[in-house]
């Protein structure tokens, strides 16, 4: 165990609706969707047509830029519909699932006997390559590149996030297999970050063939980007890969069973989730499959992921590839008389002392999606670094992004950040600036100009 890294800055948002640790439902999928929009900058190439039969693990999409990167169907069934948006942009491939799941057999493999090339080949063919994310920029890893190192965060701090200990119980052996496999793709080793508060309580400290780091602190201490920043910052020209525990489990299963098995336990959470708990499901399941968890979909927001970084997918939407959490919130589209002028607002949380929620530190709040104000220019400049445990100047980086000034973006650390790291800055911002969008635009500019 290396040195413990204590992160002072951060904030745990006290939102209600944590999922009870039991599995309330095993979802038999009806229609599931494969969404190219889950991957930044992906230009997809469609490999199937409506009416085609697919098995779990059959390729459905390919990356137009490097066509050996494939995206697989999570279930076996028939391609029901290809949904396109503006300018015929491919949004979803919907697959009507069979009652009984059949898997493509990729063959059981012994990782110890495989070379790096064989491992890459196996992941690419089976459609699990997109599980690897490259930093900088958070795009799908480039198979041609050898990364400096691979980073895995083995704990979560995001609001209401699914507990990895609960969702991945029994998957330790698969995760170990995946770690062994990925370790061959880099010289820098696989870095695993654990929460020091729960070090002995989690089974993941038993993983071998990894370099362990421990972290302590509030959200976003569990973000892999924050961890990389403290373990080995990304400099210009360097590439590292990140992968989640969830994806490691799937990769391990591919080698151990020969199947593309992305089944997962999904936490259904949020203030408007009735009896929040876990379900057994797949990526791409429809929100209709969890209708036991809400009364009526009207005026509710369905988020694939957590409240800070997730995607608003709507009541008809489908869970994202990387997500194992659904958050259900009420839309806050109502007026509040004299809200900001009232001395007390007991139903609202604020991290600032201008309100009194610091008096009730244990209280959980039924948050909704109201913006609580109007957009303004940056005025307060010290609120952001209090929730960003990185040695960066957040306002300067954001202003460089707004000004499309690439030199300054580089200088202020665009290589080290993704939207998720700035999500709390956006949450606390009294000027109500859409900070994550600024970072998204900044990264898009970097991708356009630098790659």
């Amino acid at each position: 165990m290396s040195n413990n890294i204590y992160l002072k800055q951060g904030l745990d948002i006290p939102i209600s609706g944590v999922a009870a640790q039991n599995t309330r439902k095993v979802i038999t999928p009806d229609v599931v969707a494969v969404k190219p929009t889950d991957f930044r900058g992906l230009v997809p190439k469609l490999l199937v047509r409506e009416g085609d039969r697919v098995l779990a693990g059959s390729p459905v999409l390919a990356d137009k830029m490097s066509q050996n990167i494939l995206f697989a169907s999570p279930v076996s069934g028939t391609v029901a519909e290809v949904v396109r948006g503006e300018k015929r942009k491919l949004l979803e491939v919907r697959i009507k699932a069979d009652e009984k799941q059949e898997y493509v057999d990729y063959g059981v493999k012994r990782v110890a006997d495989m070379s790096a090339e064989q491992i890459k080949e196996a992941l690419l063919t089976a459609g699990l390559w997109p599980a690897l994310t490259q930093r900088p920029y958070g795009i799908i890893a480039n198979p041609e590149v050898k990364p400096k190192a691979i980073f895995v965060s083995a704990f979560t701090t995001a609001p209401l996030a699914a507990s990895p200990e609960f969702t991945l119980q029994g998957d330790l052996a698969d995760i170990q297999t995946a770690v062994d496999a990925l370790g061959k793709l880099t010289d820098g080793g696989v870095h695993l970050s654990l929460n020091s508060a729960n070090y002995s309580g989690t089974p993941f400290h038993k993983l071998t063939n990894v370099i362990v780091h421990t972290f302590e602190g509030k959200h976003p201490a569990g973000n892999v980007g924050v961890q990389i920043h403290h373990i080995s910052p990304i400099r210009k020209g360097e590439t590292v890969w990140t992968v989640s525990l969830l994806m490691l489990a799937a990769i391990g299963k591919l080698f151990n069973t020969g199947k593309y098995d992305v089944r997962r336990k999904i936490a259904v959470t949020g203030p408007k989730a009735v009896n929040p708990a876990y379900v057994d499901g797949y990526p791409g399941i429809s929100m209709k499959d969890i209708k036991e968890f809400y009364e009526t979909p009207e005026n509710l927001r369905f988020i694939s992921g957590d409240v800070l970084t997730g995607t608003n997918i709507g009541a008809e939407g489908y869970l994202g590839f990387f997500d194992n959490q659904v958050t259900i919130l009420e839309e806050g589209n109502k007026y509040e008389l004299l809200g900001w002028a009232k001395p007390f607002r007991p139903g609202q949380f604020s991290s600032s002392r201008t309100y009194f929620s610091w008096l009730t530190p244990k209280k959980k709040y039924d948050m909704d999606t109201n913006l609580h104000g109007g957009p303004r220019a940056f005025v307060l400049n010290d609120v952001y670094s209090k929730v960003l445990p990185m040695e960066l100047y957040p306002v300067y980086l954001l202003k460089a992004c707004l000004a499309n000034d690439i030199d300054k973006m580089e200088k202020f650390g665009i290589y080290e950040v993704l939207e998720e790291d700035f999500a709390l800055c956006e949450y606390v911002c009294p000027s109500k600036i859409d900070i994550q969008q600024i970072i998204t635009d900044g990264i898009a500019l970097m991708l356009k100009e630098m790659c």
Partner: protein
Amino acid sequence: MSGLRNFVDKIKPTFEKGGKLGFLHSTFDAFETFLFVPNTVTRKGAHVRDCVDLKRVMIMVVLALVPAMLFGIWNVGYQHKLAFGLADWGFWNIVLYGLVKVLPLYIVAYLVGLGIEFVSAQIQGHEVNEGYLVSGMLIPLIVPVDVPLWMLAIAVAFAVIIGKEVFGGTGMNIWNPALLTRAFLFFSYPSKMSGSTVWTGGVERFVNEGVAFQAGNGLVDGFSGATPLADPTLANLQPKLWDMIVGTIPGSVGETSVIAILLGAILLIWTGVASWKIMVSSVLGGLAIGYLGYAVGATDLPGYYQLVMGGFLFGTVFMATDPVTSAQTECGKWIYGFLVGALAVTVRLWNPGYPEGMMLAILLMNTFAPLIDHYVIEGSIKRRAKKVKIA
């Protein structure tokens, strides 16, 4: 409550784009959002947001200024009573006189300033920014009570238009708008901003025209009307030290009472709206140069007198800490604050032309704050790059 909401919803279309009064859209929006937190929901990024907004932040600063304002109103009347020997004046007479003198300053400052803000928001199609709520609260507190209202109106217009709107409004300005108002008055109408007759309500008028609101028996014998800065010697100020702390001395409306200002400082620091680092370092800077001057014989006042005289503390707590115009980096705040305090006392001690240096020190440091930040950030990036290379 819902009746009010229904009324607002009913008249809203008139003020929307294309409505009969569409040209007042920003104004309507300002009043509506003043009454109601809007029903906008998050579209991008984080789906939930903290309930704090700039209105709440600004109202905290306004609240922090209330003790200084209330004391200022009372002190205006009290100084008038002392000057004219009105022995029969009780508390309410004093407050009434103070209100009669100070209220018009507030009305002018807010009408002119907010008027310009509303018009420019409408022209640029923005929402009205609440930053001026604070500026408007500050301006009457940092001018002499007898300043002619038309002068104040011109100065406010100058500060808001040239100091703020041309840069793009609140958040983009380089200099503190309230101090810019005072600087404009100071350099355009020096006779109304210095001397010994301007600091007490009614004295100027009595000297010029022989009348005042309550002339009584005329000015009392030995009336000086000077602020402590006019004659900063130990012999003069030692007996007045307690008066200077309580604030029962002539001066700009809201700056005299150390106690009232400290009450505001506690609120600002507790809520985290203003930086305690700037306040502490400014006090340290003032003390350092104050004691240096004492040591080399530039003054016979011990350094701590510099803190309680004139506008030092008011400037330190409310003006130097303006988050937009001060240094933005944490290390930069220490440097910036220290230099504000040090420069203010330097001007006092070594520049015979200006008895008070706080305004000039803050405006000068506002100008240099981006430079301080630049070097702090360069240094930090270089240090970090070195550390990463070694690791």
